[in-house]
C-alpha cells in the first residue's frame, strides 16, 4: 500500500503537488455559481469554493487510485491465481477515518460561521413567542385557486399580526445589524401560481419585487394555499412560505439589476411557471418607481371618472384589479386551464 501512505517518493510527491494545485485552481475557477447580488452570496460562494477545493482533491485522489488500480492490477493473461491476501492495516484505516472526520468537522464549524453571518441565528430570538402565534387563514380544498385572489388582503393582515408577535423561521438580520429594524419591510404572499408583494407601510401592492440597492430588506413570507418556496438564485437565499407558519427572509441587495424569483417547492401543476422578478434599483430609481405606484394605486375620488361597469367589457372591468394583484395574462391563462382540467 505504499502509494496510500504519506508521500515518500518523488512521483507521489509530484502527484500531491499537482493535485493540490489543480484543486486550488478548480476551487477558484469552477464558474458554477450565478452572479452574486446580495450580501449573503459571497459568504455562500466562498464556502462553496472551499468545498470545491477539498472535493476536487478527494475526487482526484480516489478516482485516481481506482483508475490506477484498474490498469496496474488487472489480471494478466493465463494467471488464474489469487492475489496476495492483505486483510487490513490499522494505521492506514485510522488515517482514512480520521482525515474525513477532521474535514467534515472543519466544514461543520465553517458552515455555522457562514450561517451566522448570513443572519440565520437572528430569528431564533423570537422563538419564545411562538406558542401564541395565530395561524393565518389558508384556503379550503377546492377553493385553492379562486379564494386567495379575493382574500389576500385579509390574509396579509393576519400575517402582519403574526409577524409583529414575532415567531419566525428563516433568515434575520446579519450580526452587525442585529436588533435594528429593517429599512424596508415587504409582506410576500405565495399563492398558486404567483407571488404578491405588499409594501406594508404604504399599501403598494405589486407582482414584482422592487427594492433599493444597499438597503436592509425584510420579507415576511406567507402562503395562502400550499407551501411555496421563495428563491432568488443570485442572492443564494431560499425560504419556504408555509401556510400557517410565517417565515422571514432578510437580505441586502448589492447590485442593481433584474433577477428571477423562483418558486422552489412543488406547488401544483403550474409550479414551473410560478416565476416573477426581483428588480434591484438605485435609491433614486426606487423612489421614482415607488412614487409612481403609490399614485397609481391611490384611491382618490376626485380623479376617478365614474363609469358604469355594465358599459365595460369584462377585461376592461378586471384590468385595474389584476394590475393591483400582480396577476398577468400568462398566469390568468394558466389559472383558467387549471380550473377547466
Amino acid at each position: 500500500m505504499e502509494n496510500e501512505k504519506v508521500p515518500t517518493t518523488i512521483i507521489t510527491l509530484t502527484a500531491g503537488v499537482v493535485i493540490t494545485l489543480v484543486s486550488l485552481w478548480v476551487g477558484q475557477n469552477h464558474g458554477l455559481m450565478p452572479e452574486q447580488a446580495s450580501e449573503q452570496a459571497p459568504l455562500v460562494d466562498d464556502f462553496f469554493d472551499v468545498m470545491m477545493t477539498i472535493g476536487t482533491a478527494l475526487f482526484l485522489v480516489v478516482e485516481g487510485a481506482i483508475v490506477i488500480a484498474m490498469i496496474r492490477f488487472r489480471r494478466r493473461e493465463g494467471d488464474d491465481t489469487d492475489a496476495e491476501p492483505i486483510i487490513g492495516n490499522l494505521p492506514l484505516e485510522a488515517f482514512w477515518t480520521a482525515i474525513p472526520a477532521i474535514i467534515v468537522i472543519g466544514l461543520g464549524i465553517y458552515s455555522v460561521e457562514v450561517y451566522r453571518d448570513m443572519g440565520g441565528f437572528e430569528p431564533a430570538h423570537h422563538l419564545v413567542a411562538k406558542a401564541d402565534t395565530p395561524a393565518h387563514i389558508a384556503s379550503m380544498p377546492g377553493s385553492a385557486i379562486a379564494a386567495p385572489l379575493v382574500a389576500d388582503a385579509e390574509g396579509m393582515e393576519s400575517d402582519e399580526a403574526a409577524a409583529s408577535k414575532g415567531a419566525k423561521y428563516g433568515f434575520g438580520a446579519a450580526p452587525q445589524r442585529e436588533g435594528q429594524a429593517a429599512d424596508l419591510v415587504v409582506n410576500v404572499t405565495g399563492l398558486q401560481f404567483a407571488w404578491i408583494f405588499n409594501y406594508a407601510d404604504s399599501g403598494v401592492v405589486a407582482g414584482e419585487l422592487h427594492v433599493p440597492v444597499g438597503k436592509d430588506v425584510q420579507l415576511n413570507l406567507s402562503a395562502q394555499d400550499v407551501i411555496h418556496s421563495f428563491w432568488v438564485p443570485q442572492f443564494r437565499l431560499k425560504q419556504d412560505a408555509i401556510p400557517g407558519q410565517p417565515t422571514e427572509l432578510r437580505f441586502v441587495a448589492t447590485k442593481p439589476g433584474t433577477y428571477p424569483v423562483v418558486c422552489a417547492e412543488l406547488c401544483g401543476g403550474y409550479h414551473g411557471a410560478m416565476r416573477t422578478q426581483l428588480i434591484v434599483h438605485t435609491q433614486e430609481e426606487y423612489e421614482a418607481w415607488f412614487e409612481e405606484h403609490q399614485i397609481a394605486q391611490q384611491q382618490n375620488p376626485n380623479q376617478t371618472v365614474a363609469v358604469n361597469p355594465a358599459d365595460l367589457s369584462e377585461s376592461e372591468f378586471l384590468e385595474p384589479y389584476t394590475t393591483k394583484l400582480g396577476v398577468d395574462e400568462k398566469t390568468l391563462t394558466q389559472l383558467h386551464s387549471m380550473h377547466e382540467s
Partner: protein
Amino acid sequence: MTQTETAPQSQATSHSSHPTAWKWYDYFTFNVDHKVIGIQYLVTSFVFYLIGGLMAVAMRAELYTPDSDLLDPNLYNAFLTNHGTIMIFFWVVPAAIGGFGNYLIPLMIGARDMAFPKLNAIAFWLVPPAGALLLGSFFFGGAQSGWTSYPPLSLITANTAQSMWILSIILVGTSSILGSVNFIITIFKMRVPSMRWDQMPLFCWAILATSILALFSTPVLAAGLTLLLFDINFGTSFFRPDAGGNVVVYQHLFWFYSHPAVYLMILPIFGIMSEVVPVHARKPIFGYKAIAYSSLAICIVGLFVWVHHMFTSGTPPWMRMFFTISTLIVAVPTGVKIFSWVATLWQGKIRYTSAMLFAIGLLGMFVLGGLSGVTLGTAPFDIHVHDTYYIVAHFHYVLFGGSVFGLYAGMYHWFPKITGRMYNETWGKVHFVLTFIGANLTFLPMHSLGLQGMPRRVAMYDPQFTAINQLCTFGAILLGFSVVPFAVNLIWSWMYGPKVGDNPWDALTLEWTTSSPPEIENWEVLPVLTHGPYAYGMNGRNGKGLNPSAPTSGEPAVEAK
C-alpha cells in the same frame, strides 16, 4: 479470517423425497421457499423498474423544450410522483432487500430457509397489490404532489389518487417491516453453528443493519401517512393549517423514515459490493471489521439526520446546525467503505467481468455522489440548492450510480448461481458501457442546472437552461436503451445460456458450496465452515477452485505494512 477446520457435522436432510427443482408456475404461487420468493421479488421489481424508467424518459422528453408542450402539467406531476415512488418503493428496496436479501441470506449463513417462511411469502405478496394500487391511481388522475406528498398540496389535489398512493405505500411499508423482522431473526438464530459473527459475509451485516433501520423508521412513515389519509378522507386536521394543523409536523414524520430510506436503498448495495469486489479482484476484502461496523454506524447516525431535508422549511436555527453536523458525520463511515473497496482492488488481480465493471462503475459514481452529498449536508449551501436540479443530480448519482449499478453488479454476479447458466459477457459489457455513459450524460449536467437556478419538479423552465436539458434528455434516452441488452441477455441466457458448475467464480461464501441453481432446502448436508468468507490467496489456495478438504495450515493472512 481463517478458521481451523472443524469436523464435518453431517446433518442429513429429511426431505429427500422432495423434488429438486421448481417448475415455472411455482413462481406464480404462494411459495414459501426463500429462493423462489427472492426471484419473485427480483422479477417483480425489475418490471417496476421498466415502468418507472419509461416515466422518466417521458419526463425527460417533456423537458426537451422549456414549455410544457408534450405532457399536461398535471400528468407530468403524476409521472414525477410515481417515478420516484416506484423507483424507491418498488424497485431498489424490494430488489435489494427482498430479492437479494431473501435469495442470499439463508444461503450465506448456511440455513435451509428464512426463520418464518410463510411470513416471508406474505411480505412478498403484499407488493403486487400495492403496485396495482399505485398504478391504478392513474385512472383517478394520479397522485401529483411528489413522492414526499407534502400537505397542503396533497390535501387539495387528486384526492382519490392520493389516497390510493398512501394505501400503496402503507402496504409496501408493512411488507418491509415483516421482511425486516424475518431477516433479523434469521441472521441471529439460523447461522450454521460453526459461523462466528466475524465470519459472516458482509452482505449479511448490511442486511442486518438495513433491517434494524427499517424496523425503527418505517412505522413512523406509516403513522404520518395514516394521519394524512385521515385528513384527506375523514375531515381530521392534523396537517390542515386552516384548522389548527401543522404542515411541518408531516415533514418531520415523513423524513424520519424517508431519509433512512436512502440507507435502506444503499446499505444492501454496500453489502453486494463487499461480496462482488473481493471475488473478482481475488483478494480478501480490506478491513472486514471496519466495513461491518460502518454499516451499523450508518444505521445509527442515519436516524438523526432527517432535518437536512427541511433546512429551508420551518426549521429553527439550532436544528439546522445540529443536523448539519450529524449529516456530515455520516460521510465518515461511508468514506471508510469506499476506501476499503479501493484498497481491496489495490494489488488485486482484477477480472473484468460484467459484475466487476458495474462494481467499479459504482465506486466511480458514488465518489461524486458522496462528495456532493457532503456539500448538501451543510445548511448554508443547501439553502441555495435545495429543491433544485443539483439535488436531482446528487441523488441520482447515489441511487442510480450507486443502487442501480449495485443491483446490476449483483445480478451478473449471482446469475450463474440463481439459474445455473452463464450470461453473455460481451453483451454484459455493452450494457455497462451504455449505462455508464448514459448515466453520466444524464445526471452530470444537472449539477450545473441546479446551481444556476433551475428548480426541480417543473414541467416548464427558463429558456436559458434549454441546451443543458437537451443534453440530459439525450442521456436519458441512451439510459433507456441500455436496459435492452441487459434484459435480452439475461432472459436468453436463463433459457439457453451455457451451463456452469456450482462455483464459476471460485468464490468462498457458502452460497457457492451448493448446486447451481440450489436445490430445495439448499443443501443435502448442511455445510461446515472451514475458512472465512474472503480467504482468497490464503490457506494454500491458489485460485484453482475451492476444495473444502484442503489442509488449513497454510500461511497466515498478511497484514499490509
